[in-house]
């Protein structure tokens, strides 16, 4: 689904001026950087951190929706949700592979997620109490993710950019199925429409937080933009998302819970855009630091999956070794 920019990344680097300048020149020529190419340690660390967080977000992102697969109201919805959650798992795997090209192992990344050292997107620490949340997540959360991920397809690091191209191709289905689900609810009974509205009331602000802190407070953004890991600032992407989303909410006949939202014809160089109210950054940091409603449940679920799967991983390796040994023996006979 998506990474939350870079929370707590260490972009420190200790190379010579010449090395850094030569690297920057490659970036400025829009050359892609590939796994074994020389690169500043700060560039490598930033990417390991960001791609790892992104991968963890995909994997943890399976949990809020996985909950609803058995309770989907029709076979059509169930098949769609199942396919979507399977995609999130796939996206996590593409991203873990991309991070592994930078010299970090899958086991290290898993360990960092389970120990709480590595972060994942704060959005997945909110609960999904109603069926309408499956629609809202697809529409808003995947919508915000797409907004973030499209520029990442042009990221300077080749393996990350290639993974993002695959992810973006698949993500469009996620957003559309979510919006279609909400259309159904809004065309349904009064209670169904209220359920949709309630869901948007809960998810609107957390979705805006997915773009990360304001540019002025985002300490690592500048270096990431220079290295072309990032192409747009957090606030630029957030604005694009709001401008694209409000007309879609209007089509549903639903509102977003922001009394200060209003059209400003001057915005976006005269093209117009929406001014929005203040985001509750205290809530954001609370959730990032582990005090959201679902942080503990999410990590508990991942730990259980990892621990319960241990015998399967061990058995698979033991079986592979046995087969290999039998083959060697047969060859010797």
């Amino acid at each position: 689904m998506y990474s939350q920019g870079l929370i707590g990344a260490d972009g420190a680097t200790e190379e010579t001026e010449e090395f850094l300048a030569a690297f920057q020149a490659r970036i400025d020529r829009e050359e892609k950087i590939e796994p074994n190419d020389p690169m500043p340690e700060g560039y490598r660390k930033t990417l390991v951190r960001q791609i790892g967080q992104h991968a963890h977000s995909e994997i943890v992102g399976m949990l809020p929706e996985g909950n609803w697969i058995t309770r989907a109201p029709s076979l059509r919805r169930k098949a769609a949700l199942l396919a979507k959650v399977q995609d999130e798992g796939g996206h996590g795997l593409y991203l873990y592979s991309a991070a592994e090209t930078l010299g970090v192992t899958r086991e290290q990344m898993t360990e960092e997620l389970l120990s709480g050292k590595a972060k994942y997107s704060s959005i997945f620490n909110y609960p999904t109490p109603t069926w309408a949340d499956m629609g809202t997540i697809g529409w808003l959360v995947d919508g915000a993710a797409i907004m973030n991920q499209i520029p990442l397809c042009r990221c300077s690091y080749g393996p990350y950019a290639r993974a993002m191209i695959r992810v973006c191709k698949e993500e469009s289905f996620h957003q559309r199925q979510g919006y279609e689900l909400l259309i159904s609810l809004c065309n349904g009974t009064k209670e169904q429409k209220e359920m949709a509205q309630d869901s948007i009331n809960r998810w609107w602000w957390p979705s805006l937080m997915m773009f990360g802190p304001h540019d002025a407070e985002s300490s690592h953004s500048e270096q990431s933009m220079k290295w072309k890991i990032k192409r747009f600032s957090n606030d630029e992407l957030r604005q694009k998302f709001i401008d694209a989303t409000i007309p879609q909410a209007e089509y549903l006949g639903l509102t977003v819970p922001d009394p200060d939202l209003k059209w400003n014809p001057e915005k976006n160089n005269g093209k117009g855009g929406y001014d929005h109210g203040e985001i509750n950054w205290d809530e954001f940091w609370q959730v990032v630091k582990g005090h959201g409603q679902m942080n503990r449940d999410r990590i508990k679920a991942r730990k259980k999956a990892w621990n319960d799967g241990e015998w399967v991983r061990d058995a698979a390796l033991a079986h592979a070794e046995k087969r290999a040994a039998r083959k060697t023996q047969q060859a010797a006979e």
Partner: protein
Amino acid sequence: MSKETPLWEVFVRPRNGLSHKHCGSLHAADEVMALQAARDTYTRRGEGLSIWVVPSKSIFASDPDQTAENFDPSVDKVYRHPTFYDIPDEVGHM
């Protein structure tokens, strides 16, 4: 933490007539599981008709530090290209 599961590189042939193309990597205990995982991870939407998996440790790569000495010599040999040679128009297409 338990032992590391081996890494495999995945190549997919999008359709007959095209060559297998590298599309990513994955972890699996053996080639049987690697092929199954590759199918689920990389071909969920009709992306391929055939899959190869290769243990990543079996791949040997050229050194990026030697890119210039490896590949620059081919850049200045224009006489290796057909357009280097002048053929009179009367001869027609060749």
